[in-house]
């Protein structure tokens, strides 16, 4: 498969009490054509900020500090504002976590999709509207004609997210960034929408960067997985590797605390302590404050990436030194719901 997007050493900083804190710190990962990469982590770990950095939509006062984001070999961070505008919504689309507020409340749904189409293709309003109707059918919106004319508040959360998806797909992007696309929705709707996304990916042949904290969803959808903790990607690899033979103590803890993997009747194991806030991030490995294997070196030195195989990498001194616990995690296939 060919490489679509490669992110190298991406660092995004936010000023916090006078210090510039790297909310995204030296992130490196890649997405191939047609692939679904899941970016996993607890809330506040920098997953959304990674996505916004790729789109160059980091909210102020944050700033992309360094790194490269290459789409088919072209560095997006070096593009002019106008060139970047053509990429956004054209070649990379994004859908957000909050379908309730992500649509403009005073514009009809159809008009919002039409606007997206006409920003990138020179088509008449009528043609754009026709295409919009097709998209609505494609993403599974019942009664599309009425929904074209509806205002967002007249639709349910699930329908709104479908409108968002239709808008994101309207220009046949090469990459879709889905930032917790189903978190705000009912569980039954979640499954429908995720299945739809997979189908659409096959039809259009696009790649997806799926941001989520739900390992169940990852297990069902992802080809590859990257795990983020406190601004850094600490482990990445094929889904079966990461979920089945996790290397990093954090990933292992995360997997153990999943109800589906736990032994019935036993107390759910948890990772001790809490995620440190960005102002309190430790110098060395950021997980050192909660890690049972942490030694002096972990607290001092930032761990480099250790490759277990070509496609499975973890950043952990314990893994590097071979004193990590045996790869943990259940049979991922069996864990699927």
């Amino acid at each position, binding site marked *: 498969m060919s490489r679509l997007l490669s992110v190298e050493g991406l660092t995004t900083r936010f000023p916090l009490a006078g210090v510039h804190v790297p909310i995204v710190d030296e992130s490196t990962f890649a997405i191939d054509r047609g692939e679904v990469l899941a970016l996993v982590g607890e809330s506040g770990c920098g997953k959304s900020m990674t996505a916004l950095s790729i789109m160059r939509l980091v909210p102020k006062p944050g700033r992309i500090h360094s790194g490269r984001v290459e789409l088919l070999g072209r560095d997006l961070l070096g593009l002019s504002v106008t060139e970047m505008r053509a990429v956004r919504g*054209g070649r990379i689309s994004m859908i*957000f976590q909050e379908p309730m507020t992500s649509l*403009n*409340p*005073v514009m009809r749904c159809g008009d919002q999709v039409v606007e997206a189409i006409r920003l990138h293709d020179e088509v008449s309003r009528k043609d754009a509207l026709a295409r919009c109707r097709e998209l609505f059918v494609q993403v599974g919106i019942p009664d599309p004609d009425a929904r074209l004319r509806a205002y967002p508040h007249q639709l349910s959360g699930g329908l709104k997210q479908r409108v968002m998806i239709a808008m994101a797909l309207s220009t046949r992007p090469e990459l879709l960034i889905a930032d917790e696309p189903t978190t705000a929705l009912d569980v039954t709707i979640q499954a429908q929408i995720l299945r739809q996304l997979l189908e659409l990916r096959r039809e259009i042949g696009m790649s997806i960067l799926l941001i989520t904290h739900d390992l169940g969803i990852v297990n069902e959808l992802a080809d590859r997985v990257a795990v983020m903790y406190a601004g850094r990607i600490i482990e990445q690899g094929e889904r079966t590797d990461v979920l089945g033979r996790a290397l990093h103590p954090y990933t292992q803890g995360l997997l153990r605390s999943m109800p589906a993997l736990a032994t019935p009747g036993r107390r759910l194991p948890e990772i001790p302590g809490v995620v440190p806030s960005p102002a309190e991030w430790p110098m060395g490995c950021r997980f050192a404050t909660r890690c049972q294997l942490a030694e002096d070196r972990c607290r001092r030195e930032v761990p480099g990436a250790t490759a277990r195989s070509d496609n499975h990498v973890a950043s952990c001194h314990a893994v590097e030194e071979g004193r990590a616990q045996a790869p943990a995690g259940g049979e991922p296939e069996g864990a699927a719901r």
Partner: protein
Amino acid sequence: MLAYVIRRMAYGVIVVLGVLFFLFLLFFTVTSPDDVARKALGERVPEAVVEQWKVNHGYDKPLFPEPGAWTDNMLVEHYRRMLTFDFGRSDADDTPIADRLRAGVGPSLALTVPLFTFSLLASIPLALLVALFRDTYIDRMGVVLCVLAMSVSILLYIIGAQYLIGRLLHWFPISGFDADPRVVVRFLALPLLVGLVAGIGGDVRFYRTVFIEESNTDFVRTARAKGCGEARIMGRHVLRNSLIPILTQVVLAIPFLFTGSLLLESFFGIPGLGAITVDAINGNDFSVLRTMVYIGSLLFVGGQILTDLSYGLVDPRVRLE
């Protein structure tokens, strides 16, 4: 919709009745008709003259309903007169108040309507511009300028403009009014300029806050993610949504166009309702003052109903029920 309007108007009527009661307390109990009479006639007139004055002005009844005067008292009389728009005569010079109001509306509107229009036309684009450049030095400069402009007393603006433009530069006459539209433009230029400058700081700052608040919303992020440019986002997505809070301010201001501007009118010699009010203050003319407050609140209540109705027009989420 109709039910909503009726309910809304009913509440408006209750508020107006409340205002009238408050006015009664102020003008008949805090200051009694005797006080008013003495202010009009002088402190040392004999009791009989005061009584006669009260009879002439219809202030000679008992204040509150009491045995024998359940309907024939000042409270009932006050409500009856105000609700039937029978404002009676001025306490100070006996002219019919209604005539004065009719004469004053025209000049007031001649000043306030252009002032209102120009203010909107100037401040909203300026605020959009400042908001477009948010977090840059243009924005910071803009806010500082607004605060500077807001911190100057309107008295200083008026006196300064009259002195500088009227007296030193002789561009426009310092004060006066004329019924001829071609002449009146020259008279209105200075008060318009002053009103515009005095108000623009606060307006721009308010609209800027609204715009910036709207441009931090999720749907603006969506618009950016689909490739909208900043100018298009401001013009299409932010402006439409900002109209909702802005409307409250703007529609509410419309009724007060009728009551004119106290300071501008009296400083620049425009014989509008504002100037009439100032005359009433200087001449202890309580009945005129009372009427002006009443009319002001009538207009305000009407404006509020209008605002609520106009929400339904701009915001598809609002359904008037």
